[in-house]
């Protein structure tokens, strides 16, 4: 593999300066399998990647299996309550040691030759050990650990690079929007315990990455939903999501973005009473009361009006509305998306059930929104086959974008400064040489 990589870089190095300009990017970035492989190494197997939430391994012995980029990992919780990230590969002959998506186990036994490991990854047993010789110590053959692991408010991230900036530094100001999401719970905690909707599409992973911070598409791709909303509730979505919206698009650094709808939501809240649609009133009162107990009446009301962020942590996790969403690249033209509705700790079951129904309206393979996005990703990939002029344009707001005192790039909601930010960071990562991580 190292030889193949060296060949790629020495003879066929991709000219990322030529492919990524401030106001446009080249179509090749979305379909070239060599670029996809390079992204795995230089982005996904290097930066902090979201793996899972601590609530998914709530009990000692709980585990889930995920991938960091293309590499399979197991996230476990040991008997002392400690969370671990190990590679899902037997240290003996490389068998995937756990094929279940989740479960509870004190140890993992490889079905191939019976090597056994505890949920910290330590090797416990090697059958017929004698033949390995006197000097053999099973302690020298643990499951490989993900080199770095850290968590923020229950969100566990792993980095396959042994060196690099801390998670705190990586997330930067994005943490305040993680807080906005989690603080909707009166106990300040969310739980991912309500299942996962799984979606696939024939398109590059960056189509989802760019779609999430792109508010411009909403009024067109989702016209059917916007029209339905207007007919049913009288709510004119263009006031929130269109040119007149007071909402902003933010580029937060390190590829992270947020669409800050709080100003729009506050304006709407002034015009209407608190929107209680779909929520049982008594349960909502209890929810409000619980929030007030923790934060006081003013802040509690603010939390409800502000709602969720529209946050994307590069390269793979989204916190918005009721959901935590993960992006899983498969190949240059295939991607999986995982939606997990988040339950709020400390609210009545009716509130969480109503969150599920609200979520399903738009987000599901059979929802009123997500399938149309997926359809656009597919058509996007088809359009990329036209190669006379291969540029994709990213100019919206380029003359009005400003940078605030914290270095956050601020534009209008339906501008594209946040996408330009993602591409600047992408280019920075892709221009770094392989093995620049101290290996």
């Amino acid at each position, binding site marked *: 593999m190292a030889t193949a990589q060296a060949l790629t870089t020495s003879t066929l190095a991709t000219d990322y300066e030529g492919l990524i300009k401030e106001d446009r990017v080249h179509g090749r970035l979305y379909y070239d399998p060599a670029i996809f492989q390079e992204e795995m190494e230089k982005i996904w197997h290097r930066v902090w990647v979201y793996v899972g939430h601590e609530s998914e391994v709530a009990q000692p012995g709980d585990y889930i299996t995920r991938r960091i980029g293309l590499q399979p990992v197991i996230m476990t919780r040991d008997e002392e309550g400690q969370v671990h990230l190990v590679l899902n590969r037997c240290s003996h002959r490389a068998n995937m040691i756990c094929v279940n998506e989740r479960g509870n186990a004190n140890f993992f036994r490889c079905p191939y030759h019976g090597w056994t490991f505890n949920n910290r990854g330590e090797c416990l047993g090697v059958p017929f050990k004698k033949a390995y010789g006197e000097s053999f110590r099973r302690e020298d053959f643990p499951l490989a650990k993900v080199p770095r692991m850290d968590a923020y408010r229950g969100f566990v991230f792993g980095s396959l690079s042994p060196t690099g900036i801390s998670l705190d530094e990586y997330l930067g100001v994005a943490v305040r929007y993680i807080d906005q999401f989690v603080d909707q719970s009166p106990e300040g905690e969310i739980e991912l*315990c*309500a*299942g*996962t*909707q*799984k*979606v*696939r*599409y024939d398109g590059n992973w960056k189509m989802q990455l760019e779609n999430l911070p792109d508010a411009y598409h909403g009024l067109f*791709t989702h*016209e*059917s*939903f916007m*029209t*339905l909303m207007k*007919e*049913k509730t009288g709510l004119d979505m263009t006031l929130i999501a269109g040119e007149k919206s007071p909402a902003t698009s933010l580029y937060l650094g390190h590829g992270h973005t947020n669409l800050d709808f709080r100003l729009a939501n506050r304006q709407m809240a002034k015009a209407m009473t608190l929107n209680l649609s779909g929520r049982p009133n008594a349960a909502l009162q209890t929810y409000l009361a619980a929030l007030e107990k923790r934060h006081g009446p003013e802040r509690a009301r603010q939390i409800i009006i502000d709602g969720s962020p529209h946050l994307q942590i590069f390269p793979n996790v989204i916190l918005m509305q009721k959901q935590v969403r993960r992006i899983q690249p498969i190949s240059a033209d295939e991607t*999986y998306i995982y*939606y*997990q*509705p988040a339950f709020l700790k400390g609210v009545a*079951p009716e509130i*969480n*059930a109503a969150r*599920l*129904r609200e*979520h*399903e*309206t738009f987000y*599901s*393979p*059979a929802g*009123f929104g997500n*399938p*149309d996005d*997926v*359809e*656009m990703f597919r058509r996007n990939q088809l359009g990329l086959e036209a190669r006379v002029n291969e540029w994709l344009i990213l100019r919206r707001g380029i003359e009005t974008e400003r940078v605030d005192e914290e270095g956050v790039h601020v534009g209008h909601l339906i501008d594209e400064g946040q996408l330009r930010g993602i591409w600047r960071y992408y280019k920075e990562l892709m221009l770094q040489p392989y093995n620049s991580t101290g290996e």
Partner: protein
Amino acid sequence: MTIDRYQIENFLYDEARLMDEHHYDEWLSLWTDDAIYFVPCGRDDADPTKEVSIIYDDRMRLEDRITRLKSGVAYAQEPNSRMRRVISNIQIEKRENGEVIVNSNFILPELRLHRQNIWAGRTIHKLRLENGGLKMAYKKVILINNDEELPELVFLI
């Protein structure tokens, strides 16, 4: 007046044809006012109050679903899928309070924009007589791949 097997089979075949041919309003008229249309996600016996679904529609959301499908701008069904489903293994599970619970299998080839998907699963219908005709009060569709990464599922299943 009991509901006989012949009526039930005819109902299921008629419903299948309406779905295959995108006769949205006629399909909607098969539902009772207390309708529940349920496609579980992740596992066959998921509890919709505690677990996310692929579809969990009451009457109001069913109507919204149909309104959207008829809008002409529900792009994941523009153009429509071509479908011909086969309903088989029909088993009457039980009869109570004038209602009948029927289980059946389906296999559904779906063709859209050069790609053919094969969908399959088991359906549970709760049927009752209303104004002399059979209606659906509850329909649960158990896809064999409800825990897999799915493409768009915007047609009627």
